[in-house]
């Protein structure tokens, strides 16, 4: 069985490292990036099933990641996480067709459940 590929973009290494360890334990193939530019470059080369991205990053931010992903692969699901959660950012993200939106710290179990939902939605 092919493993699902998950991309995690967060400018803090700890987020990517923790996400990678826990998602790999569930059998996903995980690639992490500290900023969006190389991540999008990688995306252009190969599709990912789910992209988990920080909202607020230097350079390209989460909203731009969302738009680019949706342009490239409309079926790829994007999950946004942010330490600066407020209603406006959530609304903005939802309008951009984000699959899910979590304030940080985000419970890993909830993130995993969201990824599973994204993948099963993908199948239908």
């Amino acid at each position, binding site marked *: 069985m092919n493993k699902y590929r998950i991309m995690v973009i967060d400018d803090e290494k700890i987020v990517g*490292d*923790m996400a990678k360890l*826990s998602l790999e334990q569930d059998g996903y193939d995980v690639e992490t990036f500290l900023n969006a530019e190389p991540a999008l470059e990688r995306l252009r080369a190969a599709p990912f099933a789910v992209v988990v991205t920080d909202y607020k990053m230097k350079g390209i931010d989460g909203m731009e990641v969302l738009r680019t992903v949706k342009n490239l692969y409309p079926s790829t699901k994007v999950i946004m*996480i942010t*330490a600066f959660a407020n209603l406006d950012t959530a609304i903005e993200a939802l309008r951009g067709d984000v699959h899910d939106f979590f304030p940080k*710290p*985000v419970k*890993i179990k909830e993130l995993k459940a969201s990824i599973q939902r994204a993948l099963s939605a993908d199948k239908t």
Partner: protein
Amino acid sequence: MKIGVAGYLQPLWKALLGRKPAPLPFDRLFRLFRLVLEKNNRAIEIITDMGEKMGGDYLFDVQYLRTAYSELSDTVRDSLVHFDALTQGRYRKIDEAFGRMDALARSAIFEAAPSLNERVLYLKDISWDLSRDVGGKNAHLADLKNNLGIKVPEAFAITIPAFLDLLSHNGIDAKLAASDLAGGLSDEEAAKIRGLILNAEVPPSLAAEIEKALVKMRALHGENCRLSIRSSADEEDGDFSFAGQFDTVLNVPAEKQAVLDAYRKVVASLYSSRAIAYLKQPGLAGARPGMAVCCMLMIDAVASGVAYSTSPSGGSDTLMISSAWGLGAAVVDGQTDTDMHILRKGGKAEILESKIGRKEFMFAPVDADGVSRLSTAADLRDKPSLTEDQIRELAAAAIRIENYFRKPQDIEWAIDPEGRLWTLQARPLRAAEEAAPARRLPDPHASPVIFRDKGIVVQKGIACGRVFLLRKMEELDHIPHGSVIVSRYDSSNFIRVMPHASAIITAVGTPASHMASLCREFRLPAVVNTGDATSLLRHGQEVTIFAGDEGGITVYDGIIAGYTGLRAQTTMDDVYEFRKKRYVMRNISPLNLIDPIMDNFTVENCRTIHDILRFMHEKSVIELVERARYGGEMMVKKAAVRLDLPVPVDLIMIDIGEGLEAGIQKNAKKIPLESVKSAPLKAVVKGMLAPGAWHSGAVALNVNDLLSSVMRMPDITTGAADFVGYNVAVISDEYLNLSLKFGYHYTLIDCYCSGTPKNNHIYFRFSGGATDMTKRSRRITLLELILKEYGLNLTSKGDFLIARISNLPKADVENLLEKMGRLLSYTRQLDAVLNDDDSVGRYAEKFLSGNYQL
């Protein structure tokens, strides 16, 4: 260790009886008390939240850590202001203590550089808060020597700031920064860095400081004294052992040039290919440790070795000692057979098993410098290297060290010619973890067994692969990925192949070697001391090995399908960035100040913010109690009296407003429950006295014994000290603040119980314990089950529980308080019977159904 209540209260008495500061009006005193409690409660909530969010179940970032810590720091500062006012500045040192902790936490959270100016420090001058500057090994040794009184040889540290000076003085830091950007050092670059360090100039000011320390060392221990120069890297002896990864230079003359050479050699080993390989394991990826060095007086060791305060693969109730003649290298390098003793822990450690090995080699210092491997004298080879008394002394020291650090320890020790025991280093021991607990042994008939139950398992697990018979170290680089390495000796050099090997089997060696520690860190199945079993394996043969709990390994011929790649999973603790962030919690959440009656219950022993909060709370409560006795005003105006109960419960009540009937005799020894008007206190006591809640025929204690254990007062050293104690209820008609000490457990109930539902709250806190975490956690789980059933909001972590509820009618508050009273009595009695996890649910259910039988 105990100093009794008199000693405990001495500073307060001195102040009260001596300078007699003008007492605060009681109303103000109580207001300040409430403010301290309120702030402390908030601070503890933040700590608990941080513990939860940073416990591995959440993705968090530095932003969270910074925000949460800033709020914590502000809250503690506010509390300190109120506390200083409450105690009229008698514990001013606590502000300084918090200032140090705060600076430490901030430097870690906001990632500031080390702040220490000292480049060279003797162990006696190293306090716990300097561990970032002196490295793990030095910090642990200083802790053992200064705080635990363990015999540690004279030593001084050359600090991490000194290391940074060395790098920048020689332009090496710029090269390292460049390689960091390029994704880390290649082997060639690392070799260049090593060369640069070996030839580096030690900054003259640092060299002068080292010389000064050596002059002192020679003055204390003679012109010809020798030193061992060991590494003490950033995280070394912390969560990761770095066992055997860095160079140690032994038997160095205490002279400037020799020590500087050895210093450079040890520092350079930070960039050895072994160390670089070690840094590639998942938990350390991204780490760039700094290197402090420990210069320790050499002990002329008759025997030395390693003690594991908890046997890594046995039960938690045994400890293990490995020993050999001469210097410890014989044990830690796994070069020769050693003596091994297993002891059962407990009051007086009992020797369960002793195996005397044939110690063909030993290591001894040579006259000029360095050490050499010698053949052991024929009459010593099979002779035990330790006497029974020495084994027991070692065991006792190991248990003390484990208790102090609250983690199993890997301890290197030596015995000098006078028979004195010295501790050379102590670091946390990683236990042999199960690789695939859910798996069962394969059908034994599925494959032929090559051999069964051989050797000593150092890391449990199942592995498959081709046998690589290693004859010479040079062959290491030719070992294919996935091999089962079979070797006569063990060696920490195997680190280079550990990330890719399937398993390691050695003929000799001990579970106390560096290699063994590394295998546990890499979770690489490994077995040592299999004797001639290795001769049963052929080079290139495919095998499946099972290294289980007992009886060594079993090796099957061929690869059994389904058992490949079963190395134990890494955990969040193995993520370097996670550990680094969580490291901050070390200075925040552990509670070291447990018992206020112990003489270590001082500001000086506050090591964490939790300790500061505990200290403030304790002293604030005592302040109220003592003011009642010595403050005059409160004694006259407010009643501070013992509650007379039909059971020997020593509870002091301080009435701050209509908590007791008017006209209570001010000098009454005890007052009856009927005279209590405080609705919340009445409710709690009613629950505690509910028939059956505390009575039990099943526990082998009589009722009086049982009750005095339920709420025992500390010894009162003077008969006149009527109000000394810390089972205290501060009451008004609508308010209760109840502090109870149950053995080593503390309970706090703070409650408003008025006719206005929106003002009402119950705050219940349960914490502490002297037993092991499993037992403490069971009790917490039981409380959780019950309090959740009652509708309270819960937060818990480890042995700590907060339950709260607010905004409810008076009758409901009273009802809940009564239930809590029952729970307090009931849970105390349960201590003896919560022997397994299943019992928790059973007893919770019984309690909820009103059945208090044990």
